[in-house]
C-alpha cells in the first residue's frame, strides 16, 4: 500500500522538482530523464546563442563605417569565424532537435523516455566538452581561428592560429549529433504507444525522424573531413595540395557533402515546429498531412545531393555545375509544398494571434524570402555575380535566423507553458516579436541590397558607396538585439512569476498536452492508447 501511495506522488510531482536523493546540480547533469537533458540543452544552447549574438553585434559595429572602427583585420577574421562556429555548431544544429526534440519526442509518441537514455546524457556531455573546446580556441596558443567556419584548405592547413583545437571541437560535436540522431530513429521505430501509427505521428516527430537520418548518414563525412584537416596540419600529407598530386577541390566536396545537408538538419525540425503551431492556432487540421510528411523525406533526400552549389566559382567542371544547379532547383519543390500546405491550413481558419503563431507566421514570410533568394544562388549564372558577397550572408540569415531561429522562438513560446507549467505575459511577448522583426529586416535586407551592389563578405573594410546600407544594417542589429533581450526578460520573469496553467492551454490535440504541466518524471502513469490523429482538434482535451 505504501508503495502505491509513493507511486501516486511520483506522478503528481513535475520533472522539475528535486527528489532530494542527490545534490541538486548532480540531479540535473547526471539525469537520464529526456526532459531534463532537453532542458540542459536548452539552457546551454541559449547561453551559446547569447555569445554568438554578442560576436555578431561586434562584427556589425566594426562595419558601421568604412575603415578600422573597433577592431583590426585579424581580430575581425577571428570574430566572424567564432560567430559562425558558435552559431552553426553550438546553436542552430542542436537547437530544435536536441532541446525541444528531446523534451517533446517521447511525450508526443506516448513513451516514457527515449530508447537509450544514457546515450542521450552522453550526447549532452559530448556537446558540452566540444563547446568548451571550441570556446577555448579563443585563448592561448596562436590566437583564435581565422579561417571562417568552413575551415577551407589550403589556408586552414597553414594558418598558425588555433585551428586544430577548433576542428577537434567540431569533430566531438559531430559525435553528439550522430548519437542524438541514432537515439531518435530507434525511439520512433520502437517506442510508439499503442495506436500511434506512422500516419498518426505528429509532424514534428516526422521532421525529427527525417533530420535524424541526415544526422546519422552525413555527419560521419564531416568527421572524416575534419580528421583530414588535422592530418594535413600535423603530418603534412598533401592530400589537398595540387603540387603534390592532391586535389584542393576535394576538400570543398567533402566539407559541403556534410555541411549542405546540415542546413536541412537545421531547418527541417523548424518546419516541424511550424506544422505543430499552425493547425492549433488556426483551429483547423493540417492541410495535406501526407504531402508534408513526403516533403520532409524529400527535402532530406534531395537536400543531401546539392552541395555542389557552394562551389560554382571554384573551378569545378561545367557538367557538375549543371547537375548541381538542377538538383538545387528540385529541392525548392518539397519546400514549396510545405509552404502551400501551411497557407492552405490557414485558409478559412479561426486564427488566434498568440505569440507562438506570430513567430510561425513570421517564419513563413522570412523563410520564403530566404528560399527565393536561394534560387538566385542556386542558378549558376546569377551565382557568379553575387558569390561571396553580402547577398549570400543576407540569404543565409533569412533562412537560418528568419527561418530556424524564429521557429525556435515559436517553439519556446508554444511549449513554455508545458515545460514550466507557467504562462508568459502575452503583451510583452508580442512587443518583443514586433521589435525583432523590425530589427531583423533592417539588418538583413540591407545586407541583401549591399551584396547585390557588390560588397564582398568577410572584409572588415569597404568602399564609401556601401556606407549607408552598412550603417542601416548595424542600426538593425541593435534593434534586433533589443527585441531578443526583451523576449528573454519576459520569459525569465514568467519562469518565476508566470500564472500557473493547466495541462492544455492552447487546446491542442497531440499527446504532450494530455499530461500535467510540467510533465511528471515518467511522463505517463499508464501508457496511452491513441485513437485519433494529431490534429483532430475536436478531440483536444480541456485547457
Amino acid at each position, binding site marked *: 500500500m505504501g508503495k502505491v501511495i509513493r507511486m501516486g506522488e511520483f506522478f503528481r510531482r513535475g520533472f522539475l522538482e528535486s527528489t532530494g536523493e542527490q545534490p541538486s546540480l548532480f540531479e540535473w547533469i547526471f539525469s537520464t530523464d529526456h526532459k531534463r537533458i532537453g532542458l540542459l540543452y536548452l539552457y546551454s544552447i541559449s547561453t551559446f546563442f547569447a555569445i554568438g549574438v554578442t560576436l555578431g553585434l561586434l562584427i556589425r559595429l566594426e562595419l558601421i563605417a568604412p575603415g578600422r572602427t573597433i577592431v583590426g583585420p585579424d581580430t575581425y577574421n577571428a570574430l566572424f569565424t567564432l560567430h559562425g562556429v558558435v552559431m552553426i555548431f553550438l546553436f542552430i544544429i542542436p537547437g530544435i532537435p536536441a532541446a525541444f526534440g528531446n523534451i517533446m519526442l517521447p511525450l508526443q509518441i506516448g513513451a516514457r523516455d527515449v530508447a537509450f537514455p544514457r546515450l542521450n546524457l552522453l550526447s549532452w556531455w559530448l556537446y558540452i566538452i566540444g563547446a568548451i573546446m571550441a570556446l577555448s580556441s579563443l585563448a592561448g596558443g596562436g590566437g583564435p581561428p581565422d579561417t571562417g567556419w568552413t575551415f577551407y584548405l589550403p589556408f586552414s592547413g597553414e594558418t598558425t592560429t588555433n585551428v586544430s583545437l577548433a576542428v577537434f571541437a567540431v569533430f566531438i560535436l559531430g559525435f553528439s549529433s550522430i548519437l542524438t540522431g541514432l537515439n531518435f530513429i530507434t525511439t520512433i521505430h520502437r517506442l510508439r504507444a499503442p495506436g500511434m501509427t506512422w500516419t498518426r505521428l505528429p509532424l514534428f516527430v516526422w521532421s525529427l525522424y527525417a533530420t535524424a537520418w541526415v544526422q546519422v548518414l552525413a555527419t560521419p563525412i564531416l568527421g572524416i573531413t575534419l580528421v583530414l584537416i588535422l592530418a594535413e596540419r600535423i603530418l603534412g600529407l598533401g592530400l589537398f595540395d595540387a603540387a603534390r598530386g592532391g586535389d584542393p577541390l576535394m576538400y570543398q566536396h567533402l566539407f559541403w557533402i556534410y555541411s549542405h545537408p546540415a542546413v536541412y538538419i537545421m531547418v527541417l525540425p523548424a518546419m516541424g515546429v511550424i506544422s505543430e503551431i499552425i493547425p492549433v492556432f488556426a483551429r483547423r487540421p493540417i492541410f495535406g498531412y501526407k504531402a508534408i510528411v513526403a516533403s520532409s523525406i524529400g527535402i532530406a533526400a534531395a537536400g*543531401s545531393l546539392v552541395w555542389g552549389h557552394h562551389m560554382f566559382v571554384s573551378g569545378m*567542371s561545367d*557538367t557538375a555545375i549543371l547537375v548541381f544547379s538542377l538538383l538545387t532547383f528540385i529541392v525548392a519543390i518539397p519546400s514549396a509544398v510545405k509552404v502551400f500546405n501551411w497557407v492552405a491550413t490557414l485558409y478559412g481558419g479561426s486564427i488566434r494571434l498568440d505569440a507562438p503563431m506570430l513567430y510561425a507566421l513570421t517564419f513563413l514570410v522570412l523563410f520564403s524570402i530566404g528560399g527565393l533568394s536561394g534560387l538566385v544562388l542556386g542558378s549558376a549564372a546569377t551565382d557568379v555575380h553575387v558569390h561571396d558577397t553580402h547577398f549570400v550572408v543576407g540569404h543565409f540569415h533569412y533562412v537560418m535566423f528568419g527561418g530556424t531561429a524564429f521557429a525556435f522562438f515559436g517553439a519556446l513560446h508554444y511549449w513554455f507553458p508545458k515545460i514550466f507549467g507557467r504562462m508568459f505575459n502575452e503583451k510583452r511577448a508580442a512587443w518583443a516579436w514586433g521589435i525583432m522583426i523590425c530589427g531583423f529586416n533592417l539588418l538583413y535586407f540591407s545586407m541583401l541590397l549591399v551584396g547585390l551592389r557588390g560588397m564582398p563578405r568577410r572584409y572588415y573594410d569597404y568602399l564609401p558607396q556601401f556606407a549607408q546600407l552598412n550603417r542601416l544594417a548595424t542600426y538593425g542589429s541593435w534593434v534586433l538585439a533589443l527585441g531578443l533581450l526583451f523576449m528573454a526578460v519576459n520569459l525569465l520573469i514568467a519562469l518565476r512569476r508566470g500564472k500557473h496553467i493547466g495541462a492544455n492551454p492552447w487546446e491542442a490535440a497531440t499527446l504532450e498536452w494530455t499530461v500535467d504541466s510540467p510533465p511528471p518524471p515518467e511522463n505517463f502513469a499508464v501508457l496511452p492508447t491513441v485513437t485519433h490523429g494529431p490534429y483532430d482538434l475536436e478531440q483536444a482535451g480541456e485547457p
Partner: protein
Amino acid sequence: MQHTGSMRQLIGIWGLLLLLTAATVGISRIHLGAANIWAALGIATAKATLVTLFFMHLKKEGRVIKISLLVTLATLATFIGLTFFDVLYR
C-alpha cells in the same frame, strides 16, 4: 553474440578472402587502363560483402538492419558518384 557459422564455413570464407586479396595484387600488375580501378573496387566490394554477411552475421539479421545498411551504402555510393560529375569532366 555467439559465432553461429560452422568452422568449415568460416575457414572457407577466410580462404576466399585470401584468394581475392591475391587477385587484387595480381590485377594491379596487369595494365588495363581505367578498368584497373573498377576491378580493384569490385574485388574490395566483394570482400566487404563477405565480411559483413558472414563474419558480422548480417546474413542472419532481420530485414530492418539489412535495409538500414543498404541505405547507408547507397547514400555513400551516391555521394561518391556525384563527385565524379566534377572529377571526370574537369
